[in-house]
């Protein structure tokens, strides 16, 4: 668990279902600089495992996952 990071961009994926959350996350990261952190919020429960798989596949760091009733927040750092 990484501490002390600041969120540079936020992405709202509420109401979007697979595969849109991971697709939009990748698109959002493309516009950011290496080292920056993106906060992505989704309502799709499938996005929990999808984001882990996405981070493994792309090499970008999934810093933290937070869960609230009906909401999933993902914090991703662009590593390359």
């Amino acid at each position, binding site marked *: 668990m990484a501490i002390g990071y600041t969120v540079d961009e936020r992405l709202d994926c509420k109401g979007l*279902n*697979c*595969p849109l959350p*991971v*697709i939009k*996350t*990748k698109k959002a990261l493309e516009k950011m600089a290496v080292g920056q952190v993106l906060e992505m919020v989704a309502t799709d429960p499938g996005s929990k495992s999808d984001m882990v*798989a996405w981070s493994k*596949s792309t090499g970008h760091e999934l810093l933290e996952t937070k869960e609230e009733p009906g909401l999933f927040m993902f914090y991703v750092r662009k590593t390359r």
Partner: protein
Amino acid sequence: MAVTPQELDQVVAAKVKELAEHRLEQMVREQVRAALDAEAKKSSRPKRVAIVSSKGTLDAAYPPLILATTAAALDMEVGVFFTFFGLHILKKKGLENLKFVPVANPAMPMPMPNLLGALPGMTGLATLMMKQTIKHKHIASIPELMELAKESGVKLWPCQMTMDMMDIKWNDLIDGLEEPVGAATFLEFASHADITLYV
């Protein structure tokens, strides 16, 4: 003291053995290094996904496009070969007008006897209901997924043979496609793929 022929032989033999072993060790080291470099190059290239899309109904258009766009989001290299009725998805008149057929599908959300599903108008009704469900549940539409696929660099190949067989012209197809190709082109691409799927 003069050197005897036997002594000379021995010296030469020893020297040859030494040189040969040294050279052999060098050669082995070079070969191993080359093999390791080739392996490293192989594992650093992105995973490749090859998909065949052979059916043109609304429900059958989803798997290839969802898999393709998701794979692209996972930084994989993706190519989709649209053949036979899959080519229908690439038609200007097809992409937004795909149909959902309620016949011979016991897994339908609202199962019905085939005889009923085959009545005139049932395909239209089933398609409408399916489209409404898709919109209601915020699932991406097929045109949206196709756009996403093109934006993510997914290669979309129309099958040349299918175009010839069904008299489909290049102008009948949507933009953003690769040149029509044959099975050999797709198979060559798929021969280096990590994942190959037939839908």
